[in-house]
């Protein structure tokens, strides 16, 4: 039964992947998609370019972004013992946004001048911003014992960074504001292979590192006192969990914009689907579910209008909010809450 559910998840992924490759501004038949993926030259050069230079990097980016944000959310939910923790709620995404805003708006770069150095600066800015918020949260987690209060601190810090961003916007050029607003809507498209390479190198490394924390994560389910009594070094574990979720959030935010709800909701979907809180199965399942949700968002962003790609952040709340409301309403019936 448990393996069956994993199999369902694993078959959903390639189906969604193919749907994303086939449908869009131009519909391309599955046979041609397969040929292009197999490395053959297509008869239609336009399809060739669309598939290999645009859709494939976009699709892979969506999978990776979904996985990284979801795993970041899971790590945060276990670290804070709070089912409503997530990268956007704790202010980590907004910290990364502030970093990106400083780079985009102060350095005055525009979407038309996308050099490699510029992207390195954006990634660096996002990392610095996310880590700054993480340090603030870590400091407060030493002082504020209650996790609910810590969430509120995260939300307040998020407001602070928003006001910083508003100020930067106010004093920036029109061009800078425009490119920042576009980035802020969130997007998996517009990925080039070289940028995807950097994203994948950092994102996959962070995902692999998170697998190393499965054992202490399970002990942390019982709360810090029990975990400590079973030999877990709480301070070190908590710090590495927070640094790792910061890294996962920062790298994705830098490349795709601040994407809401995926990090909060996907761990819940994975728990409900697999019926477990055991991170040994939950963590890989969360990454896979995150990839599937990333693909679903991509599909929904290209299907309605065909000519234009809808911003991802217009779609994630539509998927996310009904699930959060269901979780809140049904929490007495959900095993992992009790």
């Amino acid at each position, binding site marked *: 039964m448990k393996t069956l559910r994993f199999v369902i998840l694993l078959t959903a992924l390639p189906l969604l992947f193919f749907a994303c490759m086939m449908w869009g501004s131009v519909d391309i038949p599955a046979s041609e998609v397969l040929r292009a993926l197999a490395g053959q030259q297509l008869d239609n050069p336009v399809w060739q370019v669309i598939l290999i230079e645009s859709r494939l990097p976009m699709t892979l980016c969506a999978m990776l972004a979904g996985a990284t944000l979801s795993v970041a959310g899971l790590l945060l939910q276990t670290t804070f013992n709070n089912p409503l923790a997530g990268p956007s709620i704790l202010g980590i995404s907004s910290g990364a946004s502030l970093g990106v805003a400083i780079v985009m708006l102060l350095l005055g770069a525009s979407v038309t001048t996308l050099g490699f150095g510029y992207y390195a600066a954006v990634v660096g800015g996002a990392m610095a911003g996310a880590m700054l918020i993480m340090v603030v949260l870590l400091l407060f987690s030493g002082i504020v014992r209650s996790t609910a209060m810590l969430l509120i601190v995260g939300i307040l810090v998020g407001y602070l960074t928003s006001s910083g961003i508003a100020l930067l916007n106010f004093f920036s050029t029109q061009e800078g504001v425009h490119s920042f607003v576009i980035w802020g809507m969130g997007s998996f498209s517009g990925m080039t292979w070289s940028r995807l390479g950097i994203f994948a190198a950092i994102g996959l490394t962070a995902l692999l590192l998170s697998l190393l924390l499965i*054992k202490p994560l399970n002990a942390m389910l*019982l709360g810090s006192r*029990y975990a400590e009594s079973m030999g877990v070094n709480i301070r070190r574990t908590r710090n590495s969990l927070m640094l790792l979720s910061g890294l996962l959030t920062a790298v994705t935010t830098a490349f795709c914009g601040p994407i809401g709800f995926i990090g909060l909701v996907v761990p819940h979907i994975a728990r409900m689907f697999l019926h477990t*809180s055991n991170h040994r199965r939950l963590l890989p399942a969360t990454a896979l579910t995150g990839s599937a949700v990333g693909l679903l968002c991509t599909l929904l962003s290209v299907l309605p209008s065909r000519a234009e790609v809808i911003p991802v952040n217009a779609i994630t709340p539509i998927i996310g909010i009904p699930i959060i409301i269901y979780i809140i309403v049904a929490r007495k019936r959900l095993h992992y809450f009790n």
Partner: protein
Amino acid sequence: MEPLTLHKLTCGYHSTVILRDIDATLHRGELTALLGANGTGKSTLLRTICGVQPALGGTIMVNGEPLGSMSPRKLARTISIVNTDHTGAGGLTVEELTALGRHPFTGFFGRLTHADRRIVREALEAVGMADRRTQFVATLSDGMRQKVMLARALAQTTPIIVLDEPTAFLDAASRVETMRLLRRLAVEQQKSILVSTHDIGQILPLAHRLWLLTHSRSFIAGETARLTADPGVMNTLFSNRDIKFDPVRQEFF
């Protein structure tokens, strides 16, 4: 050698001393009850014994080794705990939760060996929860859940188990059942079990020894029969003079 010896132990927070110069010993195969009104320092003492907070003075010797010098892993192989902390373990099965007790013994990825699985099974049998091992923890009553937490402590195979008011949220039947279970485990598995509780009526017939924290924050330790024979000793537990101990009924009234 006794599993746990306290010598001139002083504990508290930072510069605030809560308990001073405690001398006491936990014995193998015995259930020891720590009694005292709220605010007398029961939890502080238990946390100090578990190594969660450093002692302000004196020594805690565990199997002849000072507690302060033990690594977290070694400590986790020596003392296990049960308290009433809220746990987010509802989505684990009874078996998975119990298996968490093997944490200080398993490798980097926490994979269980055959021997680990046998220990987990035996721990569940010892608390009478073996037939529910595939059930989710969320579906259990509070009393059963506490039994699984105890099974987890047994699976940790520590010579010492410390329980901080484990029956606080349980109904009357589960309280009696849990306390009896503790006595049986202490004797059968030769564990040293230290339990703090307010259920004085239930624990007195079961505990081999008592550690009393009086309302004036002094510490008295001794065999249950000896201490309860003297109402003068038992009456120091509470500051209210109207609450008296009846040595015949073994109860406060």
